[in-house]
């Protein structure tokens, strides 16, 4: 049980769900960003586990995971910049108040 595929998948599922729920229920943009990172990490873990237990051999999954981490760093930077600008503009980072797109 300790190092089976199932436990890894369970953990990654847990992380993804945690991230999703966080994104959906929290109203603070910074918290939402953190939750998105959580989802990404869950997915990355999934990739690593599949590579180890299912395909074996070449470390394709690990390579993709490194890419994801690098991309995540860049993406987080941009997202944080956006949040920063949003705050500067609206004096607000509560997603419920930022509803100018309301139809």
């Amino acid at each position: 049980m300790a190092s089976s595929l199932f436990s890894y998948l369970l953990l990654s599922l847990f992380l993804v769900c945690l991230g999703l729920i966080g994104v959906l229920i929290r109203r603070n943009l910074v918290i939402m960003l953190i939750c998105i990172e959580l989802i990404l990490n869950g997915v990355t873990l999934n990739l690593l586990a599949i590579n180890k237990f299912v395909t074996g051999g070449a470390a394709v999954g690990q390579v993709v995971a490194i890419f994801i981490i690098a991309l995540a760093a860049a993406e987080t930077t941009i997202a944080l910049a956006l949040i920063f600008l949003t705050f500067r503009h609206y004096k607000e980072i509560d997603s419920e108040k930022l509803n100018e797109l309301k139809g």
Partner: protein
Amino acid sequence: MSENLKLVALAVFSPFISLLLIAIFTRGSKKLSAFIAILAILISMVLTILLYARNFEGVRQQEVYYFQWLLTDYFSLRFGFIFDSLSLGMMFIVCLVSLLVHIYSIGYMHGDKGLARFYAWLSLFSWAMLVFVVSPTLLQAFFGWELVGAASFLLIGFWFHKPEAAAAAKKAFVMTRFGDFGFFVGLLILLVTFGNIDFMTLNQMGKNLAASPSLITATSLLIFMGIMGKSAQFPLHAWLPDAMEGPTPVSALIHAATMVAAGIYLIARAYGFFSASPFTMEFIATIGILTSFIAATIALVQNDVKKVMAYSTISQLGLMISVLGGGGYKAGVFHLFTHAFFKALLFLCAGSLIHHFNTNDMWEMAEKGGVRKMKITLTTLIIGSLALAGVFPFAGFFSKDAIIVAFEQNGKELFAYAVMVVSFLTAYYTFRMIFVLLSPEPHHEVHGEHEEGHEAHHGHDSPANMTIPLVILAVFAVFVGFIDTPWLGGYFDKFLLGKEEVEHLHWGVMIKSTVVVLLGIGFAYYQFGGKTGRTEGFAEKVGWIKALLVNKYYVDDFYFLVVRGLVLPFATVLNWIDRKVINDTGINGSGNLVLYSGRFLSLLMNGLLQRYLGTSIAILLFIVFLWQLI
């Protein structure tokens, strides 16, 4: 295209160019517009005379030129020109009467504000009529047919500020459209069934095994419905007397000589097609003679000179239609030709009188006095009346006898007797009008001192541009009948049918019809001649007959009742359905559906990031779920 057809094409399009020129450039100038229109129709007339000179013996080989308009796998629609004796004769009549009416209108319409418009519509009419006359296919004929209808509408309602004129124009349009509806349905059936509606094909229909007799009967009856509307046959005749609200030259051109004759021309043009169905022929003959009798009796009690002539036109058209239905092709076409001349003449004479007296009522004209002073108008009016009544040697005599002979030769003695009765009535009502107009003038004898001034004002005839057309038409009305006699070698037979042997004279019929006509004239003289003031004719002496005739057999009342009782309630129901079902439920309903669904869906567009995200995830999960199911 042969030489003849080129001339035909030029003659047809000359008035059209005039219409365009007047409509686009010379609307502002009355004189220039009149000049252009007259020049255009003069060109057509000259070309027609040229054509006639080239084909003096008649056209033996029908010439046709087609161009393709629409070609599908199932049918082909073509336009073009046809040239044969029939179309040549009709072109001659249309151009001649149209030209004379154009000239006459200079005097009659003098000082009218809409003169340019008047000439534009006259050009439109001439063009449309010629398009109809030269059409080699039923579809082109239908186009021309509707165009002359439109021109007729515009000209009847020319003085549209008069409510009666506007109403008459509408009535004429609606009533003829009602007939044209049948025409169009018949045309479509033929087109769908045979894929071709050229007259040449249609006239072969009787020998065509693919065409079932019932189909021919049905379609020919439908097309005859259009003819009943256009040629004012009972029960669709009621528009023609009302159409007299238009200017009198228009009545002469459209509602006497040419447009109303279009129906007769169409029967003659598609004679092979109509005669392929014995039932249709019987029907045509019966409707024609019935119309003829009804209209002739109504004319007995009319006091408006134009109305007398309008009913007389209906009556004569009925005779033509009837004899065509009875198998007398030549007699029908011949009467169409002669009638065009003398009826146009009569209308133009009436116009001259109306122009002079400012009234349509024959009794008022007689009271005002001075009819006898209008020498040319009076002489030509009497010539026209003699021709209409059918007195030897005027045109109507020969063509009416041809009708009686045709009925007798085709074994329809009953119809021949009916024509006799109608010609008695015709002679009677025509000369009733003449004798009333000629009645002595009491006014002048009593007030002798007023006579001078009165005479000075009224003692002249209409201007020359009105009397010259009268004289020209009168010459035709006197002499045109002879072309069907052995004295001229049976020229008309040779021209129209290419028959070489000369038909001998039918003395029996000639004597009988002369006696009948003279009886009619004598009777009219007995009741109206030499008397002063309003006198009642024999038809007015019996109360119920008078009521029946004055109310025009209650046909108008019947239409009124039908419109009030059936059409309007039905229209109300349809209106309700249109408003409630189609508009509120259909049009507004679909609009509201979009509106409310939009409002509902816009609830999703709340601008809340998490809702969007939640929705996307829910949909994603749903798709995954569906995927699983597969």
